């Protein structure tokens, strides 16, 4: 799993691509923990190139959101329609602000 991080003045953008499932969710968890461990709690997760998120992936993001709040927040960018619908179906859509573009996400911090 290839994970890129970009630090901006007020937030860190984390980006990966492809599938997030039971085989690699722990890698994403480690990458996000490395960010919050530096007390950086404003995180933008760029999902432009993510095409699948199993519940194992959502638990990682929910866990990160719990760590970030209330001092900061994890927000999502460019969430694919199918992914978004599955998130809403289990009532988890309300845990994340979802932005349509990167600029708006970074500009929200």
């Amino acid at each position: 799993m290839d994970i890129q991080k970009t630090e901006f003045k007020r937030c860190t953008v984390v980006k990966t691509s492809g599938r997030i499932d039971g085989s690699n969710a722990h890698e994403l968890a480690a990458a996000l923990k490395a960010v919050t461990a530096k007390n950086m709690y404003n995180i933008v997760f760029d999902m432009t190139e993510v095409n699948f998120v199993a519940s194992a992936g959502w638990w990682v993001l929910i866990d990160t959101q719990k760590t970030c709040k209330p001092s900061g927040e994890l927000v999502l960018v460019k969430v694919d329609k199918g992914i978004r619908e599955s998130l809403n179906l289990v009532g988890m859509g309300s845990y994340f602000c979802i932005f349509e573009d990167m600029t708006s996400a970074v500009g929200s911090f």
Partner: protein
Amino acid sequence: MSTQRFSCSLHNLEKISDFITACANNAGLSDVEVYAVQLAVDEAATNIIEHGYGQECPSRIDVTCEYLNDGLKIVIYDDAEPFDPSLVPEPAINVSLDEIKPRGLGIFLMRKMMDEVVYETSPDKGNTLTMIKHHKS
């Protein structure tokens, strides 16, 4: 009807997904329906590998796609210990972020994503999970 056998590693989740995605597309499901099938099958296979076989991987998973007039039937077979889903509690949904407890969404998601989800198990014949997705129209 088409069956593939996968060894029980989490690293095969993507291969399983490729297989059932091709079936779901052939069955004429819409993009959102295809995603629903991908998610349900992924959660089911993950459970079998993690909970059923306990990551021990002595055996395999058989996935069968069967085209129906109005959609797709997927059968997932494993010979791990018998699993009785009626013993699994319903997850708490729509709770606040503070209250949510990790895990326990897989079976719930499968039921939400698919039109039918049936678990059959017997000590000698293993576990058979049958899931059906109908087209919208």
